[in-house]
């Protein structure tokens, strides 16, 4: 057992800190918290800075522009990034479709899509869930029928995050309905500018526009945009899911959120004493903090096992379940800290003119956070998976 950092790793950490100090500026931090186009532009700017440094794509093959960090280096980077308050990359291109493209795509697809993902020239979104099929992914009904060199796609995808910004969507579509539900599914890359695509905004409980429905009405998609073989899409998609669960855990971000929360709690006065001195709040903090201390090592165990070539394996469900539970517990504490101000919807008023600066943000994070136990395969489905494949029940 060894988790001490070597001299090289300590040097790398300094390098990361320096990069963050120079590039993650307060101005950028402000803009990335904005809405719509301001957010989009700032997010792209941030990703471009990472790309200029060569740090945008850990895990990608080096020949495609990836960075071959060790598990420890990756851990160091994520920890530092998060403690600095810098956001993760938008995962749909870099972490979700890219591995499918470099793993299962042909040479032409790699050349065509990967460089544009690295340069953030294409914004991707994910077309998995459907109105009738949530966590039961294989129940999908969006149909793609071959017509010459094109597929004709009809159907709808739902809960599509940031589809309103997207240039491309990667979709699971049904190309054969005759066999087992997992068979007959193909993996298509679809240009969002294609005629017949409509994006409908879904108003969500956090009053923030992130979710959408994407409707396909006789959308023509060249066969050249299919990844791998027809009807084998489920195999390609499945490889992604374990990774998705791991990254949903959000351990490093939760650490930062807890750190910031402790600071706010020591500033908030209740009955003449800082709220952090309240034993009940301390207990809630430490309940969560201790789970997170453990989960950080669960993640390291998974990463170490991956590095040993054993693959992330089925523990990824555990990471997803516990990670999202921790996130929600933290969100709840921010709400309770904000008290009455947790309910405030800002219209024309600023936080300062009303009360606490963080009540509004606390509420948004809380409401948006409800999704975390639902998406990426609901936590209930993760438990089913664990029961079946880990415990053999």
């Amino acid at each position, binding site marked *: 057992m060894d988790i001490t950092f070597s001299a090289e790793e300590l040097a790398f950490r300094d390098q990361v800190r320096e990069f963050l100090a120079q590039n993650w500026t307060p101005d950028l931090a402000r803009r990335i918290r904005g809405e719509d186009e301001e957010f989009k532009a700032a997010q792209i700017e941030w990703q471009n800075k990472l790309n200029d440094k060569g740090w945008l794509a850990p895990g990608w093959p080096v020949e495609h522009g990836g960075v071959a960090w060790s598990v420890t280096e990756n851990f160091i980077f994520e920890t530092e990034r998060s403690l600095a308050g810098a956001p993760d990359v938008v995962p749909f291109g870099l972490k979700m479709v890219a591995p499918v493209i470099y793993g299962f795509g042909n040479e032409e697809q790699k050349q065509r899509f990967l460089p544009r993902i690295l340069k953030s020239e294409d914004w991707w979104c994910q077309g998995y*869930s459907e109105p*009738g*099929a*949530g*966590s*039961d992914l294989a*129940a999908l009904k969006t149909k793609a029928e071959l017509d010459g060199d094109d597929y004709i796609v009809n159907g709808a995808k*739902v*809960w599509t995050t940031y589809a309103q910004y997207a240039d491309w969507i990667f979709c699971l579509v049904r190309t054969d309905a005759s066999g087992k539900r997992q068979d007959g599914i193909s993996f298509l890359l679809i240009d969002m500018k294609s005629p017949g695509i409509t994006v409908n905004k*879904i*108003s*969500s*409980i956090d*009053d923030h526009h992130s*979710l959408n429905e994407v409707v396909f009405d006789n959308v023509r998609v060249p066969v050249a945009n299919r990844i791998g073989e027809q009807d084998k899409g489920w195999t390609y998609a499945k490889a992604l899911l374990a990774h998705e669960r791991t990254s949903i855990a959000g351990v490093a971000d939760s650490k930062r959120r807890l750190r910031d929360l402790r600071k706010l709690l020591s500033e*908030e*006065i*209740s*009955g*003449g004493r800082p709220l952090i001195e*309240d034993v*009940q*709040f301390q207990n*809630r903090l430490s309940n969560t903090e201790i789970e997170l201390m453990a989960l950080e090592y669960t993640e390291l165990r998974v990463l170490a096992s991956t590095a040993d070539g054993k693959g992330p394996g089925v523990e990824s469900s555990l990471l997803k379940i516990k990670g999202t539970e921790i996130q929600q517990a933290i969100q*709840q504490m921010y*709400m*309770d800290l904000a*008290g*009455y*101000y*947790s*309910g*405030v*919807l*800002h*219209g024309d*008023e600023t936080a300062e*003119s*009303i*009360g606490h600066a963080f009540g509004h943000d606390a*509420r948004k994070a809380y*409401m948006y956070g*409800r*999704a975390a*136990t*639902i*998406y990426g395969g*609901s*936590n*209930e489905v993760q*438990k089913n998976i664990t029961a079946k494949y880990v415990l053999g029940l």
Partner: protein
Amino acid sequence: MNFNLSEEQNMLKDSVARFVQDEYDFETRRSNAANPLGFNPDNWQTFAELGWLSIPFEEAYGGFGGGPTDVMAVMEEMGKGLVVEPFVATVLMFGGLLSKSDNPALKDANIEKIIDGSLQGAFAYVERQSRFELADVKTQAKRDGDDFVLNGEKTVVFNGAAANKVIVSARTSGEQCDEAGITLFLIDADAPGVERTQYRLMDGQLVANIKLNDVRVAASQVVGKVDEGYTLIDSVVSDVTIALCAEALGIMQKLNTTTIEYTKTRQQFGVAISSFQALQHRMVDMFMAGEQAKSILYRAVCAAEGEADDLAKNIAALKVMIGRNGKLIGDEAIQLHGGMGLTDELDVGHYVKRLMMINTTFGDADYQQQKFNRLAYAE
């Protein structure tokens, strides 16, 4: 021993239920909340006509003379409809303070107008720094001849935007967190020196911050006695807590019903998700949470009706359980609705938001539990 409502109470409850059923579908509720006043004034007139605005007031002032049970019966049904009209703020809080004060002149001048629907009121008690401490009052009231002059700021004043009159807690003596030395003043919302900033809360309420800059109030407008406002506040907050918890119970019942119905229709893996045993057991937990909440509400109401010695302990216990069980039910309602639970079009999220605001009001479950602990274990 019985837990039945009287015939009169049943009629009252039914009339609210019918109103919600007929006049308060979810879309109508949305547009009522979107009204610049924060509610639909026509509904308010209906409430007046149906006699609801008179419920807690003494018969001598034209009231119905209702007690905690009557208020509970009404509020539970209002909860089911997510009614945004400021029954709590105007009738129970503002009206409650006047009603419990020992000041016939103020009662004469105002209660009738509350009952006929022509007067909207508010109670301004929260300050920026006060969190849930009702006695943490920095707003100052200085005597000047027959008047008092008020300076300070109140925040998150329920119905503060629409109120014609506001009762404000201010310090006339003592230190910032002392219970003694707090006085309640009845002021006109448009009196010189009153500055209002209105904004919305997530449950649809339109509230306001109120700045008081040298606001002059006649001594005759003191509600209750000088320096002794805290007792009045405490008593009314106790009544209103029961009312809000009854509203929360209505919401929980609605969320439980809605969730059960949804799981019966939602198909996943080829069957209705209501057939999954893990979800069934969680819905049983939701049901039990609702039933326990109902029981402790009944307990608090019985204590209030009988003016029991341990009323304060019962109220704190009630607020703890409503907060905790409400959270359990709200969380599970969203989770079991899956993606649908996250959409603003569905009513589920709106019920949950109102439950959350009720939990916060007068101190969340953790805060109330510490109060309970002090009452129960610090002999």
